[in-house]
């Protein structure tokens, strides 16, 4: 008696085609090219050709057993972690403020937030050079304020790199967080207050856990970006602030060591992915609680 309607089951219609363009992009222009790079990373080095004919895992063992590399890895990870932490700490209040403000100037504040992105990377980095040099604005101001008598060495140290990265990556935590905070029903925080929790407590127990997706997005972005940042550490970090990305470029571009550089770069990528996966594992519990 019933004639079946030939239809896909509910919420099953828009399926894999949605991810098809992305898969083509990533598969065709990332995975595929990387495949030959991975192969290259196992090639023997040569000075009479781009790489030798034989295969070796030597580049990897060299990279992985090299304390010098590990020193730079550690500096890179530490810098990235500090930058991530500080951008979260500084970005959260701004996102929170921007999410709640009813000020007429909100648009202007928004521009303020994205302003680091409005100036190109190169010019921005030069601005930091001017601010952070030994006789630069920062040191002059600190000296004028009587806080220091000898200039703080910002440049050619991880410190300067960290400051400049924090600056440019702040928008990357503020904006995702802003969207997240705006999506939280304000009455939920009110409920916390009504139960007698102080603003602090309500924040830490209610608002903060509910903004985990925003924190996630921001933290991952900033961490990964800091890990792979090149221009800023190259220009501000000198040799003492050198990071993995800078080392990779040295291998590949300055010293023409493609197989070894590829191995180093792949090692760095694997490291980054591992840290992210670890981080996702660690925060999975908190995320599972969210709707």
């Amino acid at each position, binding site marked *: 008696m019933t004639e079946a309607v030939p239809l896909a089951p509910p919420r099953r219609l828009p399926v894999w085609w949605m991810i098809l363009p992305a898969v083509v992009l990533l598969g065709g222009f990332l995975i595929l090219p990387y495949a030959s790079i991975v192969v290259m990373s196992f090639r023997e080095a040569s000075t009479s050709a781009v790489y030798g004919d034989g295969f070796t895992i030597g580049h990897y063992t060299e990279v992985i057993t090299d304390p010098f590399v590990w020193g730079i890895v550690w500096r890179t990870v530490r810098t990235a972690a500090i930058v991530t932490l500080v951008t979260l700490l500084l970005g959260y209040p701004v996102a929170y403020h921007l999410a709640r403000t009813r000020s007429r100037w909100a648009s202007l504040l928004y521009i303020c937030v994205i302003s680091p992105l409005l100036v190109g990377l190169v010019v921005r980095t030069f601005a930091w050079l001017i601010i952070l040099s030994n006789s630069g604005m920062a040191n002059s101001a600190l000296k004028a304020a009587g806080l220091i008598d000898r200039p703080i060495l910002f440049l050619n140290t991880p410190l300067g790199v960290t400051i400049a990265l924090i600056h440019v990556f702040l928008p990357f935590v503020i904006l995702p967080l802003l*969207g997240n905070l705006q999506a939280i029903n304000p009455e939920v925080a009110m409920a916390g207050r009504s139960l007698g929790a102080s603003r602090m407590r309500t924040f830490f127990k209610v608002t903060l856990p509910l903004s985990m997706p925003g924190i996630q997005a921001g933290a991952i972005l900033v961490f990964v970006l800091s890990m792979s940042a090149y221009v800023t550490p190259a220009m501000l970090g000198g040799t003492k602030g050198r990071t993995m990305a800078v080392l990779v470029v040295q291998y590949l571009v300055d010293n023409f060591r493609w197989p070894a550089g590829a191995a180093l770069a792949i090692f760095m990528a694997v490291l980054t992915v591992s840290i992210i996966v670890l981080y996702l594992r660690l925060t999975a519990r908190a995320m599972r609680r969210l709707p």
Partner: protein
Amino acid sequence: MTGARKTLWDHVFTLLVALIYIFLIAPILLVVLLSFSGGEFLALPMEGVSLRWFEALFSNSRFYEAAVHSFSLALVSALVNGVIGTLAAIYVIRFAPAHLTNPLRVLMSAPLMVPEILTAIALLFFFFEVGVGNRWSMAIQIGHILVTFPYVFLNVASALFNFDRSQEEAARSLGANGWLTFRRVTLPAIKPGVITGCLFAFVISFDIFNISLLLKSVGKNTLPLELFDYLRYNFDPTAAAVATVSIALTFVAVLIVDATVGLRSLRF
């Protein structure tokens, strides 16, 4: 938000936020300031005020061409990723089988996690292997799309996470099909994420260095490369003037968006 009087903590918070805003804007103001320098060097203290660096800028057609090239790369990257990144995020968050969700998320963020220089070399190799090399103007564009893809993906994914699905059900119950529901209900709701993602894609594309360096087609240059090359040989405020002009243009664009759509539409 509450009827409470301002406490010390309120003032501390306001001060803190104000300081962060200053931190964000100060280097940019410095650049703008320096572009009006009368001196020869991109340095402080400034020796007088002049517009000469703007003259120098406008007499240099390379900057103009590079800026146009960068702009078109960035725009295309933002638009293309706005579509495919959003679709991918919707698939991964909404439809992907549970066991594939995390692997897909990692894959979709992969361009971020591999060093850009290696990606650049890999692509360079690849494009030569397939025989198009540096003569194909799409090579650099593809590189830009690839590298900026995760920004859209991640932002849209996080917006989807916060989205209350019952609104979609309401739309379906009113007879809207999947597409219409998406366009009229889901998209407006995740719009802040999409806009943020596209914005990131745009500015990142504008800043991409290594990919552009190796993949640019013969005879073309992007603005960061041009600026870097310029500053390498002329450490003068012309570069600051370039930045000031681009800030001014963006500012005007933002003001127009604010006046027409309203930046507030980024929230709801």
